[in-house]
């Protein structure tokens, strides 16, 4: 049993070790070790294409996570107050947003908005001499759609686990509804909102397929990695990958610790 577990960890981490190893390899050949070197890290972070893609991806992921956390939380709060068929419609939409494959989200967003832009751009050009195109902002919009659903599910699960008597106590003590929300509800929801934020961030930062369809001329880090793998990878990419890997490992452990803490405070 223990041996099996060790084998599984090796299976899961061998490719990661391969990437990390490659990033410190002095040579360019992936399968041949030619000594330790940090040169690829220097090269990676002085390559404007890489830093630009990294900045674009960070910007997209941060915006997505912030918007999704806010809109998703609001939606969860609103859904709790809703009843009847409208609530069922919303529930269905949340599940559809999660179930429809990312690739179909990418495609439908692409063809709907490209057709729409083609329709209105002639007018925009004659009227104000501007035109709108696909780009990073479309990536954000599509990512937010998916992550609203994720955050709403997370926050709602916690709302349903929340002790109603706390809210009632606050109301009995003459707190305004907004006061109750700020001082009682929000602190209780904070862990799941934060967890949703982190999940949305990682999803958005990692997503290739949606961005591939809707990013237009903008290049995100996964798109850059994809195209450099196609051209023949250089260890530069491994260096960036290693940095990203370590960062997301830390974020993930952090999210887990926060969720654990959160469920403990909920119980006491």
């Amino acid at each position: 049993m223990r041996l099996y577990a060790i084998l599984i960890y090796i299976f899961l981490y061998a490719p990661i070790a391969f990437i990390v190893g490659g990033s410190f390899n002095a040579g360019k050949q992936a399968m041949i070790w030619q000594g330790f070197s940090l040169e690829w890290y220097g090269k990676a972070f002085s390559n404007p294409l890489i830093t630009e893609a990294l900045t674009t991806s960070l910007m997209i992921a941060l915006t997505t996570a912030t918007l999704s956390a806010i809109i998703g939380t609001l939606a969860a709060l609103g859904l709790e107050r809703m009843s009847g068929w409208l609530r069922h419609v919303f529930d269905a939409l949340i599940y559809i947003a999660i179930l429809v494959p990312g690739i179909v989200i990418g495609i439908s967003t692409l063809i709907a908005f490209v057709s729409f832009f083609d329709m209105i751009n002639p007018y925009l050009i004659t009227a104000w001499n501007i035109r709108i195109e696909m780009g990073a902002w479309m990536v954000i919009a599509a990512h937010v759609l998916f992550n609203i659903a994720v955050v709403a599910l997370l926050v709602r699960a916690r709302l349903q686990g929340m002790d109603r008597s706390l809210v009632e106590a606050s109301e009995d003590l003459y707190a305004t509804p907004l006061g109750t929300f700020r001082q009682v509800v929000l602190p209780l929801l904070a862990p799941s909102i934060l967890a949703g934020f982190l999940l949305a961030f990682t999803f958005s930062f990692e997503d290739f397929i949606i961005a591939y369809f809707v990013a237009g001329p903008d290049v995100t880090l996964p798109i850059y990695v994809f195209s450099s793998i196609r051209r023949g990878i250089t260890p530069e990419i491994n260096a960036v990958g290693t940095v990203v890997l370590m960062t997301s490992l830390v974020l993930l452990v952090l999210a887990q610790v926060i969720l654990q803490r959160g469920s403990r405070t909920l119980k006491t």
Partner: protein
Amino acid sequence: MTAAPARSRAVTALLVAPAAVFFVFLLIVPLMVVVVFSFGERAPAGGYSPAFTFDNYLNLAARGKAFVNTLTLAPLATLLTAIFAFPMAYFLAVKVDPKWRVMLLVLVMAPFWTSQLLRYYAWIMLLGGKGIPAWLAYIGIADVRIINTPWAVLIGAVYGFLPLMVPPIYVSLEKLDKRLLEASADLGATPIRTFFQVTLPLALPGVATGSMLVFILLMGDYILPQYLGGGKVFFIGNALVDLFLQSRNWPFGAAVSVALVAIMFVTIFFYMRFVLGKTGTRRAALV
């Protein structure tokens, strides 16, 4: 109607309004556009030109191989992933010191959330000619080809989705009352019998949740078949990228998308009914 409920309703509406805008303009309308386009014709320069024809649907067989590959390999890979994930989840939930459980579980989950492209790329190297086949040749097993075969896609799928399959199974096993196992043993059941008659049925909801999650993601996957199938073992996702970004046949691509989503929803519907009937639970852990 008094003022208070009306005001309360307005607050509710304001709360859900931003989400509703996203759902309408980035989900419902685009999906409707896909359906409309699927009845259209390819414009001479690519893209869409309005028409009403069923040709795109009648023509689906032209991409039949992608459908067949997806519909055989995705369920098979899901099953394999569940088989490999179960002992791991069991180990974490039952055998490991509770102190280390969460940490070890996070270590299983972590790879899924990072550098997917690079991790699959690493597998191209590991399974390619200079990787594992070369090592196998060294110990006398020559001429093994893994990369660009269905095997590579299956290995990649187990690798890629194990991190998603383990946690739900772990959750259902962790809740399992250990006294049931003791009771079963006390009553003279062999460990194997205890496993099939007690442990496995109780862990079924977790297996069901994990399998569904993995199946959904596999059905729409692009990177895994692209990298490990190398254009020889391709999925519906690869057909879609080709149709939209290379041959720019939007109407046909739209029909393929509609077919994919329809197949997914029908499968999930029957799967849910089957699972609900079997386990009587409705929990669905999504993350």
